[in-house]
């Protein structure tokens, strides 16, 4: 075997009182695709920041090809060794797509002058390679999330480094786009590029990686060929305990006699037209579709975040108010919005306050929030959803991603909704937390709440009694529980398999 | 001659009872004008001459509320008399009341308070400044356009000069049209607006600067750049009357660049402000009538006494007069 391409030897990193990494190690050999997995907050992204020279380790050493890592200030040296798609977006929203691809390395004409013509041409070329159909001159901030992610990936791969780190690159992509990414990764791998791949979708690890390293609680646990580590063993290594993996729902649990809770008819809006559907009490409805299918816009219209242009929705016999979250909440609609960083949490406020934000008016007389009631509510939510936190008073931004997502869930559940709308509820959430979140869905369903899960992750859709697939803004297919993965995927992609 | 017409008035004398009478506080309105800066310089000098013990001067920095606070602070420090140059004739009354409550006599310099108790007002009349400038310009120009570069319209001094100038022009020189430039005591604003105005009105015949300290330089600079700065005597000479009496204005008069300035008596302000505060601390009183320093104490309609100091108009004739404060400062 050749010398390791990159090594992290006993590295540690602390942030204040948080130990993000302790004596962690990683050895990546050339030509392989190496997976890095672990629960939320295990320290994966921190390790990435050490491997890409954004931060220096508190202790231990990073080596490239047996040589010590370059000094932090020498960004060019780092970039020659490693390229990265970070978990946090590194797109500059006000610059064009083309310029984002070439930040700080714009092609030059004479006298150190940037050649915009060449920049555009080379940008176009790069986007074409990826089949990203956006204008090079478009403002990057105006792109859809997935296009933005693809631009980042294209940029990282274009640096020409032989070692590329992808930190949860698939979290924002639809299946089609993921497939395209994997095809590209395989091709690059054949030409000798090495990948470090981070994902909470374990099946992707099996699909593209040869070796896997598991981190747990800031520590290295195991490194092994993926073939030697079946899914159950992998999950055990991540969580430290044997977990029975949840089964999907195999047949619908609500009969035709159960009364309808939500009836949507002829609803049209930003990216969908004339949608009609019905959800019964205690029913879990899945809503799938590619990112452009309009499923998110539809969901956001139901919860008051958007105002539809026509049609109606009736909840338990009463018209659902549109375009006003407060009134939707009062009407009994709860929501987990699509992006916890954007719409889910107020980072500086406490876990308790975030979890009770939707019911602040109910925690005391005249709108006064009684601290004891807030605390009681928060402690109940923390226990119910198994949120890992120091306590209700901890600022929510100190929590790991999965636990933050649980706080968003707590916020949605606080109003005891009759209809719960979950948009990408497990995005970026580790397997264990994912199980926990989906278990909560099952519990409230049993209590009679209707749930709509908007996702195209198959694991999220397994607890559904029924899955609707949207394409081009309308409902294209319906799958009762017990569907086969490939049928659903084919429907989402809009390909008819002969 | 006696000082004022009060029987127990004393001539300002060195030493004496000053020290026993206690210390006096002096409040300045602002320090960003050469005039007040000169006044500030005269205060310790005159205090020494008159034998008044003073605290270091306090600067209200153009903020009337700060000025009230400054008076409060002086009262707290136990001064026995206060000389204040109000930023505003009305927005000083609350401060005066504080002093009055503690029985501390106050001398107002430069601006007469609307109400409230002051021992004496020492000032040269701002309205007189405007009128003197008006007459001097009007007599020479008689007909045509005249520019008035105004101060901050929110300041009494500026306002009174403007009003007096405009009224006098209207009454005495109906053929003169007054153009106004509100410049907020700011030199760049004055320059920019004068520059623009002269483009549209190249036939301007006179300019009144309400504050030479700020407006003299930009006015000369603007005229120079437009080739309109002609010495006195030249056909195209623009009659310029300034206001302040700083040395630079005297230089300009000597060179014939401007015609006159109204000399605000910075030295006399300091001297008589301190003189009256000392007198007050010693328990003396004054009555209306002429004084020994070419001025007259008058009783204002609100019952307050005002020593109206002379504000000489300085022209080429008297510009070298040693008695002018502008000729004795450096």
């Amino acid at each position, binding site marked *: 075997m050749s010398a390791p391409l990159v090594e992290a030897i006993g590295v540690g990193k602390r942030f204040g009182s948080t130990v993000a990494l302790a004596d962690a190690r990683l050895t990546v050999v050339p030509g392989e695709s190496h997976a890095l997995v672990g629960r939320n907050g295990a320290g994966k992204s921190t390790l990435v920041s050490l491997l890409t020279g954004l931060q220096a380790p508190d202790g231990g050493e990073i080596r490239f090809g047996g040589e010590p890592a370059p000094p932090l200030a020498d960004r060019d040296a780092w970039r020659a060794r490693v390229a990265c798609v970070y978990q946090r977006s590194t797109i500059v929203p006000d610059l064009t797509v083309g310029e984002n691809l070439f930040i700080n390395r714009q092609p030059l004409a004479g006298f150190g002058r940037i050649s915009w013509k060449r920049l555009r041409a080379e940008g176009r070329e790069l986007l074409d390679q990826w089949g990203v159909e956006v204008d090079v001159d478009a403002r990057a901030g105006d792109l859809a999330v997935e296009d933005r992610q693809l631009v980042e990936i294209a940029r990282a791969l274009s640096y020409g480094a032989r070692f590329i780190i992808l930190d949860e690159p698939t979290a924002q992509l639809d299946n089609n786009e993921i497939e395209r990414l994997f095809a590209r990764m395989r091709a690059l791998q054949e030409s000798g590029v090495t990948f470090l791949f981070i994902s909470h979708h374990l099946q992707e690890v099996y699909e593209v990686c040869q070796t896997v390293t598991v981190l747990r609680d800031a520590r290295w646990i195991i490194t092994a060929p993926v073939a030697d580590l079946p899914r159950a063993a992998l999950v055990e290594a991540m969580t430290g305990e044997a977990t029975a993996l949840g089964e999907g729902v195999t047949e619908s649990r609500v009969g035709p006699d159960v009364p309808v809770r939500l009836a949507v008819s002829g609803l049209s809006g930003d990216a969908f037209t004339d949608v009609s559907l019905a959800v019964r009490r205690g029913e879990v409805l899945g809503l799938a579709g590619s990112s452009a299918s309009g499923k998110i816009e539809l969901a956001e219209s139901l*919860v008051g975040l958007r105002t539809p242009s026509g049609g109606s929705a009736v909840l338990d016999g009463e018209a659902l108010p549109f375009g006003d*979250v*407060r009134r*939707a*909440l009062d009407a009994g609609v709860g929501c987990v919005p699509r992006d916890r960083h*954007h*719409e*889910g*949490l*107020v*980072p*500086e*406020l406490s876990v308790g*306050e975030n979890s009770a*934000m*939707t019911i*602040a*008016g109910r*925690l*005391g007389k005249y*709108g*006064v929030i*009684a601290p004891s009631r807030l605390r009681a509510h928060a402690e109940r939510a923390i226990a119910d959803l198994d949120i890992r936190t120091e306590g209700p008073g901890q600022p929510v931004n100190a929590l790991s991603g999965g636990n933050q997502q649980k706080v968003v869930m707590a*916020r949605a559940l606080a109003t005891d909704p009759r209809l719960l709308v979950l948009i990408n509820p497990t995005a970026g959430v580790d397997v264990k937390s994912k199980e926990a979140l989906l278990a909560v869905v099952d519990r409230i369903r049993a209590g009679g709440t209707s749930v709509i899960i908007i996702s195209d992750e198959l694991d999220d859709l397994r607890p559904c009694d029924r899955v609707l697939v949207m394409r081009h803004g309308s409902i294209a297919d319906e799958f009762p529980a017990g569907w086969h993965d490939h049928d659903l995927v084919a429907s989402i992609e809009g390909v008819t398999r002969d | 001659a006696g000082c004022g017409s009060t029987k127990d008035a004393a001539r300002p004398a060195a030493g004496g009872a000053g020290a026993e009478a206690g210390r006096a506080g002096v409040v*300045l309105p602002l*320090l960003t004008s050469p005039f007040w800066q000169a006044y500030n310089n005269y205060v310790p000098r005159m205090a020494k001459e008159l034998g008044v013990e003073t*605290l*270091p*001067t*306090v*600067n209200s*920095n153009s*903020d*009337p*509320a*700060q000025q*009230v*606070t*400054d008076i*409060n*602070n002086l009262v*707290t*420090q136990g001064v026995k008399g206060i000389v204040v140059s109000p*930023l*505003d*004739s*009305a*927005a*000083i*009354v*609350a401060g005066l*009341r504080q002093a009055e409550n503690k029985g501390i006599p106050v001398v107002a310099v430069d601006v007469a308070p*609307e*109400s409230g108790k002051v021992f004496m007002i020492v000032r040269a009349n701002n309205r007189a400044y405007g009128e003197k400038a008006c007459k001097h310009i009007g007599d020479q120009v008689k007909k045509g356009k005249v520019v008035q570069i105004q101060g*901050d*319209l*929110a*300041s*009494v001094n500026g*306002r009174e000069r403007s009003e007096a100038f405009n009224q006098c022009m209207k009454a005495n020189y109906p053929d003169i049209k007054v153009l106004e430039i509100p410049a907020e005591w700011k030199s760049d604003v004055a320059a920019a607006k004068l520059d623009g105005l002269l483009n549209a009105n190249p036939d301007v015949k006179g300019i009144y600067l309400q504050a030479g300290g700020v407006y003299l330089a930009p006015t000369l600079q603007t005229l120079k750049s437009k080739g309109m700065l002609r010495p006195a005597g030249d056909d195209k000479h623009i009659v310029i009357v300034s206001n302040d009496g700083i040395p630079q204005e005297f230089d300009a008069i000597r060179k014939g660049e401007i015609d006159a300035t109204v000399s605000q008596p910075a030295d006399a302000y300091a001297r008589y402000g301190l003189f009256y505060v000392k007198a007050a601390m010693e328990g003396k009183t004054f009555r209306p009538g002429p004084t020994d320093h070419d001025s007259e104490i008058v009783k204002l309609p609100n019952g307050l006494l005002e020593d109206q100091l002379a504000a000489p108009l300085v022209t080429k004739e008297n510009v070298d007069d040693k008695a002018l404060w502008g000729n004795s400062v450096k």
Partner: protein
Amino acid sequence: MRRLRELALVPALVALIVLGAFVNENFLSYANIISILGSSAALAMVVLAESLILITGKIDLSLESVVGIAPALGALVVIPAASAGFGLELPTAVGLALIVVVGALVGAFNGFLVVKLRLNAFIVSLAMLIVLRGLLVGATKGKTLFDMPEPFFALATTTFLGIPISVWLAAAAFGVAGFFLRYHRLGRALYAIGGNPAAARAAGIRVDRVLLGVFVVAGALSGLGGLIQTGYVGAINANQGANMIFMVMAAAVVGGIAMDGGRGTMSGALTGVLLLGVVTNLLTLAQVSSFWIQSIQGAIILVALMIARVTTGRAQE
């Protein structure tokens, strides 16, 4: 930890007070303390108003102009034409009410431009600052208004237990605001909006309405601040409030109100106000040369900022 941040300035404040006691025997006298409080009351009201807006992540520079225009309009409708009034001679109570109403209306207008038209708050309120300053000069023709009936001055001239009403009023306002911000859902909504407006909206907070409300309340509070100032000075000068915003922002931020929203408490803002009040008083009592007093004051603000930075260990960006 979170508590600590609010108290970051207390050591600096204590140090200054101890220093003051050494520098001048009158510093800790009852009269001087009242005088510090009395001179800070108007600033305190405006700092309170600005803090509410800053917590929501916005800014309103024009509050300083409200301090002038609101009481001026209130006075103009009351005083006779002979005293430069409009000649309406409305009852005093109407004039006093108008002060608060004008403040609220200006706040509503700014709020409308910022919330509904989505204009940048800094620059909108900067333009409004200039407009209102101009209107004040225009409405008063530059004159100082002073012939107001006694109630216009009562806040500063009347005392209760030896302390001016204005100080009680400011204290009460801070108390109420502090309670609201800490324990009322509307108050907490300000933090949520300042911390993440999208999340606040998704949690059912009517972001636009609350923001508009905050602008209105801040305007009204500044109008009250202007009334206190009027009583304190005994008149309304056409420059009233000019440049006050510098001190307002300094007090708020030194007091730990974050410029980018979502952070800060009323107790912090209050220490900020007191710090500035004590510094000004101390520098005067210490008889620092009037030429240097301003730069020393600025330097102390700068140092206070650094202290706040070091004790809280937080970047202030």
